[in-house]
Structure formats: C-alpha cells, structure tokens
C-alpha cells in the first residue's frame, strides 16, 4: 500500500477522546482519519472495561464503556470519519512548514495538515511474561500474536493462557501444528464456553494435550526453543517439548513509538498548553489521558473539552486568516446542516 492518503487531520487513537475529536473537528469542516492499534473503536473503554459502568459522563448517570463508544460513533457519523484499525502509527514527520507525514506499521501513509494524538495510555501491546531469557527466543520461537498461521505449520506448538486468544489459536492451529499443547494455570477458563468445549473434545480425542501449570523457564539454543519448563499445580516440574511458544496474557499499555516523534515528554506524557492543547511541535496536538498540564485530570470529560479547544486552533491552521465565528449546534442552521438534522 504505497498510496498516500491525504486528509486534514490524522487522529491517533479511537478511544472516547479521539472519537469526540472527530465531532469537534467535523463541525469546523475538518476531515479526519482515525488510526488505532486495536481491532475496534473504544480504546480502554473497549479493551479494559466494556461492561463496567462509568458514572462521571455529564448527563449520563451511568453508561458502560461499550455503550459510550457506540453513542460516540453514532454522534460522529455525519462526519464520515475513516477508521484504520489494527494499525500502530510508527512515524510522524513534519514536511516543510505545513504538512505532516504519518506512517503505520501496516504500511499506511497519510499526508495531513495536523496530527491529533489521542492515544490514552499509549498503545495496547501484548503482555510479555517475565520468563528468564525469553527475549532471546522472541520472534524466532516465541510469538505474542499470530501474523501468519503458516509460520507455525508442522511445529510443536505450546500455547499458554486461558483467555479467548489462547483458546481460539489452540483450535485454529491444532490442524496444522505437528503437535499442540495448551498450558493453563487452572482447569477453568475465561474464554468463550464453546471454544473451551471444542478444546476439550480435541484433547479427549488425543489430537492435542491440555496441561495444568505455569512456565518457569525455557530451554533451547541460538534463539530456537526446544522445551519449556513448567511447574505443575502439584508443585512438580516437567518439560514440554516445543519449538514454538505463544503466550497469551492479555494486553498492556506501552507508550510506544510516540517517544520517537521529537515531542517534548514529561514522565511518558506529552506536555501541552491549555489554550490549544498543542504539543511542542506546531500542528501536533495531544488530548485525553496522554497529555499533561497543570491541574490535568485523566477524565473522559476533560478529554472532550480538550478536543473542542484543539479544534479551534486546527481551524486556524487550515484556514489561515479566516475568522471563525463561534456557533451553537442548537441554533446554527449551518452546523445543523453538517449534522444532517436540518
């Protein structure tokens, strides 16, 4: 994909603040593309607490993370944002005085007037279990996600974990692996019951094995794994022969590539001013949990406010010299037209 996507704004992060930024920018005729590392919108609301209640969104006495996300998506629909999921923004470069070039790990390239970082706690990345020496095997024998199933064909695969990723990949890889072992710390799973049932059937039919325990060490040479040492739930240790291991322990937030974009950072947060929420680079803004300023509160409602003020400055950058008339959605026929309600 070498085609460059030209747009007004690239928003990094499809959490609540990134989504609401689409709304505030949209009212000012600023077109947006939204990039997120997850496979769906919502950010932390989707990944960490889709079913958990939030009590401090103004006028919504209680709302779940999933519901808040779907309401925001409905609210920004009139502005036709384009979403790019499963992409991590890897590079943001300033081109000359005006534009930015934004690149993702999936090969997307954007040219935009501004960049809005709404990346919350950073990018969600797979948790890497702190097994001694695991780094030496990463990408050769240890994988935290499956990019190409074929790479595991004919391998002796060990899958560790009890969530949906662990169970789904157990079922998907069993037919192509030479042998497959699922290792979990207990005989109970947080994964979908249907997948658990399938896994148990495969194990009973002798097509794979399911073992209880936790990995304590790895054996191998030159980055090639030969076995994982496991402490069983009875306390005894045993080895599981394998040349590929897939640990699935969920996701954690890491700042990620943001640190390499030439922005001033303070304790892994991006300092901004409180008038425009702009970073140390003109045209790059930071809103929501990822920014910091005196008095900052990591609340969704603060991110909404930040999005509104940010949009004012973006308008000025896009339309130099033009005066922006402040309008209310309640009374402005112009804004109502954009919202598709008049």
């Amino acid at each position, binding site marked *: 994909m070498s085609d460059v996507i030209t747009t007004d704004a690239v928003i990094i992060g499809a959490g609540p603040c990134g989504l609401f930024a689409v709304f505030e920018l949209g009212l000012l005729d600023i077109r947006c593309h939204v990039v997120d590392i997850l496979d769906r919108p919502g950010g*932390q609301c989707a990944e*960490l*607490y889709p079913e*958990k209640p939030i009590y401090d969104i103004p006028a919504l006495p209680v709302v779940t993370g999933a519901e808040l996300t779907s309401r925001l998506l409905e609210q920004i629909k009139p502005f036709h944002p384009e979403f790019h999921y499963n992409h991590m923004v890897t590079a943001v470069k300033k081109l000359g005085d005006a534009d930015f070039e934004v690149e993702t790990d999936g090969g997307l390239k954007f040219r935009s007037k501004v960049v809005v970082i709404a990346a919350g*706690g950073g990018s969600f990345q797979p*948790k*890497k*279990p*702190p097994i001694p020496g695991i780094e030496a095997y990463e990408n050769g024998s240890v994988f935290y996600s499956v990019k190409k199933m074929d790479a595991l064909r004919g391998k002796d695969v060990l899958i560790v*974990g*009890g*969530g949906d990723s662990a169970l789904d990949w157990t079922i998907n890889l069993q037919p192509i692996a030479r042998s497959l072992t699922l290792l*979990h*710390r*207990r005989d*109970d*799973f*947080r994964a979908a019951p249907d997948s658990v049932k399938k896994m148990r059937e495969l194990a009973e039919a002798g097509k794979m094995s399911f073992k209880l325990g*936790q990995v*304590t060490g790895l054996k191998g040479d030159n980055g090639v794994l030969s076995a994982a040492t496991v402490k069983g739930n009875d306390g005894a240790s045993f080895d599981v022969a394998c040349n590929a291991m897939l640990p699935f*322990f*969920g996701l*954690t*937030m890491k700042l990620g590539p943001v640190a390499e974009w030439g922005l001033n950072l303070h304790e892994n947060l991006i300092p901004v001013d409180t008038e425009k929420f702009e970073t140390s680079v003109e045209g790059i803004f930071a809103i929501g949990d990822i920014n910091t300023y005196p008095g900052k509160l990591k609340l969704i409602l603060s991110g909404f406010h930040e999005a509104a003020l940010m949009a004012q400055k973006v308008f000025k950058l896009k339309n130099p010299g033009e005066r922006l008339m402040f309008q209310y959605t309640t009374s402005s026929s112009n804004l109502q037209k954009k919202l598709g309600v008049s």
Partner: protein
Amino acid sequence: MAKITFIQHNGTEQTVDGLPGMSVMETAVKNQVPGIDADCGGACACATCHVYIEPDWVEKAGARNPMEEDMLDFAFDVRDNSRLSCQIKVSDALDGLRVKVPEKQF
C-alpha cells in the same frame, strides 16, 4: 487507619497508612509504591496490581472473587497466595497486612 507493608522483590519494605474503604491497590498508588502498575485504575480488568499475601495474612485478606480469579489468568507466576490488590478493601482487621510485590507485573 491500617498499616500496610509492601515488600519489594529485593526485600525493601515500605509501610504506609491505608484508609478503611480504599483498596490496597489505591493505597499503594497513593503512596507511590513501586511495582503496582494498576493500568486499568481498579476496574479488575488488567491484572497489573498482582501481589502475594504473606502467609500469616492470607486468611484475613480473604478469598479471590470469581472476576478476580478470571483476571488472574492474565497475571504471571500466580501462586496460592496471589491476589489482585484492587480487590482487597482496607479495613481495621487488616491493620498490619503484609504483601509482596512481584518482580515485574509484566
């Protein structure tokens, strides 16, 4: 007020005041105890506030709830005395509680 002691992997101890009603995780974060990451802020949704309860306190700290048991699947090196500190409420009965912080949450 309940005194809670956090023991780091290297043996360093830090004793802080816990307010009844707050969670052990919140108490740790408020006092900047290293190693309690608490990514999700206490929603029992991330397993990055994992602690080991010292043997004498296991019973008083109580049993894991089902949501916590599920979430511990995403913690590393789970032992019989593993708990998620966001799910333990500080109370006068826990005055003197001692918990170990794992070497790494992840």
